[in-house]
């Protein structure tokens, strides 16, 4: 009993001590972001495919080609200083910037650049398709991607791809330049350093990875010798705060500099705070519905066309989606090169009804809408359910976690799916390849990564145009072809494309220079000051 008393006194003292006023404000040289970072599973640029890590590796690794925060629209050389395209458009020779150094102090050599791409192909993780589509595989990549001398890397493609597309792909995460010498010091059983690079970094970018504690914190440290000069902050911290209201409190108390996952309600509530600024950044994520083509009714083009008229796009964008999503009805996000900004569809029940009648389903039918559990998907599904009912279609809604929903979708087990898609790299081909190009519609072809295949839809005209645009050498022609392809998919195909995301980020007033571009990995910390 006496011991308990002592313990009690110790606790009381601790509570009293702790209860003294707490200092607010984050350290002056550190940029602190609150974000849900539970999606992180790896830091290896050959494997990274998640939103949070896409952004993190963009700040750790310089890529062969890059979009820089100063001008997000223009593709420029990253590690490459210049490049030359062969007459047939199949070989690109990159000249590597001289004098660059990795965080380790090792020089950035042409060999590192070539090896980084070879490594991606040999490891063959999810994002590898971005470069393996050029015809590279584990056997030929050493020949097709190689350092010709100390300062030059030559890449050759075997497929008929436009060199513009190849250059764009060289700005994707898989084109991150990795420090071969450092990584190979940590190689185990020929794994090309895969095990080690999962939780370490070996880049030449603005920051290096100091710590990653899963579900807790990621700390990045500034690279003072970065080629654009030292970053504004010595340190960037991403703190895992999964609860949005906790993020809001932390921001209001100045314990963090930026909150990334606030809900529309919280954004509204925080607007009146003079110390906090909310910025909107158009993102590349589009929200779409798709109808399974193997469904006896949904497989009919008139029915899908009717669906397009049975969505209250504007009503949603003006109410519960306000600020977070804007109406967008083409597969390539607005604001980017070759975007189609026209929005021809609105809620027109009569048109939809006559279309359904001509398809022989005037008295309606029953379907299931599968969607994700997280906001705003259930809300969108409910709105769609209500407007479908006006057209006589009775829809059940089933919400599932992504890990449960995707296997169904990949196995074509849905009626209507309501989901999202964002480009893997900044080239329209990234989305066209998923939405418009399905070379083999047979079930056993298992093109499970392709949206058109998942929806059991293949169209020769769409396939052909997707390939033509992909291979087109002339930039102006290419742009026209992609716009045409998007127009085509507004009236054919299984999709009802609805919205484009606008990311709302709340920051303390004194924070400046944060840049978030349209693609998920175009987020830059290096110009941040406060």
């Amino acid at each position, binding site marked *: 009993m006496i011991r308990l008393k002592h313990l009690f006194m110790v606790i009381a003292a601790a509570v009293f001590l702790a209860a003294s006023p707490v200092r607010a404000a984050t350290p002056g040289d550190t940029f602190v972001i609150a974000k849900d970072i539970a999606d992180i*599973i790896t830091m290896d640029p050959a494997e990274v495919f998640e939103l949070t890590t896409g952004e993190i590796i963009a700040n750790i690794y310089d890529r062969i080609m890059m979009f820089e925060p100063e001008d997000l629209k223009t593709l420029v050389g990253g590690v490459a200083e210049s490049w030359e395209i062969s007459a047939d458009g199949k070989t690109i020779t990159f000249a590597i910037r001289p004098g660059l150094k990795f965080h380790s102090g090792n020089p950035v050599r042409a060999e590192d650049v070539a090896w980084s791409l070879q490594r991606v192909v040999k490891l063959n993780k999810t994002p590898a398709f971005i470069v393996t589509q050029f015809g590279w595989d584990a056997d030929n990549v050493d020949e097709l991607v190689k350092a010709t001398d100390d300062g030059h890397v030559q890449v050759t493609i075997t497929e008929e791809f436009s060199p513009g597309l190849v250059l764009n792909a060289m700005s994707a995460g898989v084109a991150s330049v990795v420090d071969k010498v450092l990584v190979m010091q940590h190689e185990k059983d020929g794994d090309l350093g895969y095990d080690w690079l999962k*939780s370490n970094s070996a880049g030449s970018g603005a920051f290096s990875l*100091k710590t990653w504690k899963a579900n807790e914190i990621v700390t990045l440290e500034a690279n003072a010798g970065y080629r654009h000069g030292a970053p504004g902050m010595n340190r960037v911290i991403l703190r895992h*705060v999964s609860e949005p209201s*906790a993020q809001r409190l*932390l921001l209001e*108390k100045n*314990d963090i500099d930026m909150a990334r996952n606030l809900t529309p309600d919280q954004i509204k509530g925080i607007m009146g705070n003079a110390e906090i600024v909310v910025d909107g950044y158009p993102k590349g994520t589009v929200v779409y519905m798709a109808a399974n083509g193997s469904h006896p009714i949904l497989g009919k083009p008139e029915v899908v066309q009717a669906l397009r008229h049975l969505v209250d796009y504007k009503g949603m964008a003006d109410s519960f989606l306000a600020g977070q999503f804007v109406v967008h009805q083409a597969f390539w996000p607005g604001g980017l090169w070759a975007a189609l900004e026209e929005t021809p569809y609105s809620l027109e029940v009569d048109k939809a009804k006559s279309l359904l009648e001509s398809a022989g389903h005037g008295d309606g039918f029953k379907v299931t809408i599968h969607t994700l559990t997280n906001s705003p998907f259930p809300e969108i599904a409910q709105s769609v359910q209500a407007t479908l009912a006006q057209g006589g279609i009775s829809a059940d809604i089933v919400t599932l976690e992504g890990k*449960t929903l995707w296997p169904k979708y990949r196995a074509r087990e849905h009626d209507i799916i309501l989901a999202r898609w964002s480009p893997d790299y900044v080239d329209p081909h990234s989305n066209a390849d998923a939405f418009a190009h399905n070379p083999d519609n047979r079930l056993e072809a298992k093109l499970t990564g392709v949206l058109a295949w998942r929806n059991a839809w293949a169209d020769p005209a769409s396939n052909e145009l997707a390939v033509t645009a992909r291979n087109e050498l002339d930039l102006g022609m290419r742009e026209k072809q992609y716009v045409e392809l998007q127009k085509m998919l507004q009236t054919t195909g299984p999709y009802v494309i609805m919205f484009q995301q606008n990311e709302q980020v709340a920051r303390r007033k004194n924070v400046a220079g944060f840049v978030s571009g349209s693609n998920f990995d175009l987020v830059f910390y290096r110009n941040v000051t406060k």
Partner: protein
Amino acid sequence: MAESTATGRQTTGSARAPSSFVVSLLGVAASLALTFIGLTAITFAIGRVMPADPVLAIVGDRAPQDVYDQVYQQLGLDKPIYVQYLRYLGQLSKGDLGVSIMTARPVMDDILRFFPATLELATIATLLGVLVGIPMGVFAAVNQGRWPDHVVRIVGLIGYSVPVFWLGMVALLIFYAKLGWVAGPGRLDVYYDGIVDPVSGVLLIDAAMVGEWDIFKNAASHLVLPASILGTFTLAYIARMTRSFMLDQLNQEYILTARVKGASEHAVIWRHAFRNVLVQLITIIGLTYASLLEGSVLTETVFAWPGIGQYITNSLFNNDMNAVLGGTIVVGVCFVGINMLSDLLYRLADPRVR
């Protein structure tokens, strides 16, 4: 006759003592082994019936089929489930819990990192519950039907029925956001993160060991709210149980006898009645502590507390079976350990068991 029986009993008792000790030890070991085999088998089976796809957790939803198939085989999912299970048990017997998908680290390392955060929280919450809850319960029982009893009942009801999630948010709003008395979500302010090397993983201990009192203060400040919230819940439960146990005892005849014999009220309550309540209370406290050690997902979420509850839940959502199994085993060990500890404490508290 009576004497001979007594002697007989004595003899058998002493003769049986060493062997019965061994037998009971074996019994404990066997039941432990069975418990864990059952635990892992059930968790394993549940993991396999869940529709979530562990492969997609690794490769993402757009992976081409060849990448998917490659990982499917790496995870050994192409083998029959019993082969997978036996393989897992084999690794487990070597102390290898496997590698987590979500954190890309050995599950054992993860648990060693997440568990201390929960341990810190659970221990303080339980202490709070015991140190405040028991006196409250006793006080209520003694004053049955009068206002102190009602106050305790209301506090108990609030603590037990108000959702922890909501209570946590409100507490943060008042004591952190408005009054600024305590620190907010997380275990430490960013100022202090990464300064103290984790030795025990319990920040208060680690900071105290190296004499970093600023960090100790900050960590304690971060602990106040989540520990109080969890503590309120524990306190409410323990107070309610103490009250009803005490009432049971206070209505017994031996209490009347004690009073008639002229024992002071203090002695009646604490020496007579409370002593008899102690054994039951130990059970309750042990179980409460064990359940807190599983981690409280809601509290951990509100307070951004990197504990074992969030870890297991997150792993479950992603069908990260190694992490789920590892977490389950740790929780199982806690439960069994604390139960054994309770058993030991019975012997101290209850003369009949001695």
